[in-house]
């Protein structure tokens, strides 16, 4: 299937590792040009070098929680590539802990990165997309937004806000041909899931091996997914093959979430 992404220009935030890195690699594989964004210069440089995509890939050190950084990120992208077609908002992590363990300040920082980050990114990027006649904005939103729980209230409220942002903005920007959608991962092997397991090992006394052997039990498909599974869905939604998809969200979670709709 020709995704017709050749020559398109994309920003991927949180691109240094895990899902963001896989998304950048997939977009490059499809012929797009990619501005990789992250906070850790050394990590980002290593990733860019490993991708080996020559001048089709650039990097920008930016904290998406900082509006000034976001404005510069968009400016640098347009200066480097001359246009902006796709934004993939992936920066941010998973906030674990019960409510009594989580100070509001932590949730506020999380909200700044995962909701206000894409908020500013959309504000800065939409005019360029509008000028080009359209574009794609994709938020990566973990399933705590749809599957809340006692140990994830921080991520649950922030991710639900992200989903509301996608739907609201899709109503607005869809009129200009800028399609806004979400890809919702859960149960994906990544540095993040490994760090959660180390956390569980420390606090629950369950070895990594014990935890990994039980991973599949919580997923109907019986296994965990990979960052590439997410990257494939993102590439499809970013493409011309998804030109009537707007305000939607695709679960890439092996069947984990329980809602019918």
């Amino acid at each position, binding site marked *: *299937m020709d*995704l017709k992404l050749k020559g398109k220009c994309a920003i991927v935030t949180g691109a240094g590792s895990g899902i963001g890195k896989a998304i950048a690699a997939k977009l490059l594989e*499809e012929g797009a040009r990619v501005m990789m964004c992250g906070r850790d210069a050394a990590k980002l440089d290593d990733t860019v070098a490993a991708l080996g995509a020559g001048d089709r890939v650039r990097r920008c050190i930016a904290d998406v929680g900082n509006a000034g950084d976001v404005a510069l990120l968009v400016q640098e992208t347009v200066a480097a590539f001359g246009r902006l077609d796709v934004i993939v908002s992936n920066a941010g992590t998973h906030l674990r802990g019960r409510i009594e363990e989580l100070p509001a300040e932590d949730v506020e920082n999380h909200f700044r990165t995962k909701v206000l980050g894409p908020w500013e990114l959309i504000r800065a990027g939409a005019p360029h997309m509008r000028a080009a006649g359209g574009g794609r904005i994709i938020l990566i939103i973990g399933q705590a*937004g*749809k599957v809340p729980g006692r140990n994830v209230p921080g991520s649950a409220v922030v991710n*639900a806000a992200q*989903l*509301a942002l996608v*739907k609201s903005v*899709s*109503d*607005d*920007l*869809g*009129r200009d*041909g800028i*399609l806004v959608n979400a890809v919702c991962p859960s149960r*994906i092997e990544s540095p993040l899931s490994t760090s959660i397991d180390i956390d569980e090992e420390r606090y629950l006394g369950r070895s990594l091996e014990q935890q990994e052997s039980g991973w599949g039990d919580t*997923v*109907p*498909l*019986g296994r965990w*997914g*990979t960052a590439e*599974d997410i990257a*494939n*869905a993102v*590439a*499809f939604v970013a*493409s011309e*093959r*998804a*030109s*009537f*998809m*707007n*305000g*939607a*969200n*695709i*679960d*890439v*979670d*092996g*069947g984990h*979430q329980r*809602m*019918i*709709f």
Partner: protein
Amino acid sequence: MDLGLQGKIAIVTGGSRGIGLATAERLAGEGVSVAVCGRDAEALDAALEKLKRLDGRAVSFIADMADAGQRKVLVDKVLDKHGRIDILVNNAGTHVRASLDDMTEDQLQHHLDVKLFGYLGMIRAVLPAMRGQGGGAIVNVVGQAARHPHPDRIPSGITNAAVMAMSKSVADGVARDNIRVNTVCPQYIGTELVESIIGKEMVKRSVSREIAAAGFTRANPLGRLGTPQEIADAVAFLVSERAGFIAGSSVSVDGGYHRYVFG
């Protein structure tokens, strides 16, 4: 993106026109051998002629998906010809508009027979083959009347919601057999079906085609009807190897029509 579909075998129900035909064409274009079924022999012949240009092994069968016997015959014939079934796209069925006052129970029963029992029956019919060969992919096409019940679309609202619940339950049940079941949820696609609904609105409201059509094209932020090909693209992605971790999911392809945050 290589979807990894080359050489796969697919059944597309309701494949003689509209979304079904577009899906069959898209799959055939990716190297899939497609069997389409429908009830209208003339439309089916025309569809097969188009498909043959993309895939010499394409076949068509006249079959009514409301009939359990005909479903079994269809699956047996495809297995006889190809020896396997990798993909099932359940698409046969229509959209029934009727209110509580003017709906008949027969009308609702027929709608349930075609779409709920038709989809479920086809899944049950292909499962032994898919299990035996180590996996498969199924997509149910379910209009957004499930998410958006409406007093003048009671048969479709009830039926589609039931199909959504069936899809998620079945998806859970067969996922461990490496069979992925997902739904694609279109709304207001430029097909003969929507054209006929626009025609009825013109008569009912005594308005011009332009005014009657505006109710559909303005129903989403994009301000247009979707095309059957846009649904076909989503189906092709979901049945492909590139969607190997997507199971039990429902994907709206409606231009932003539906009003849910979580859907």
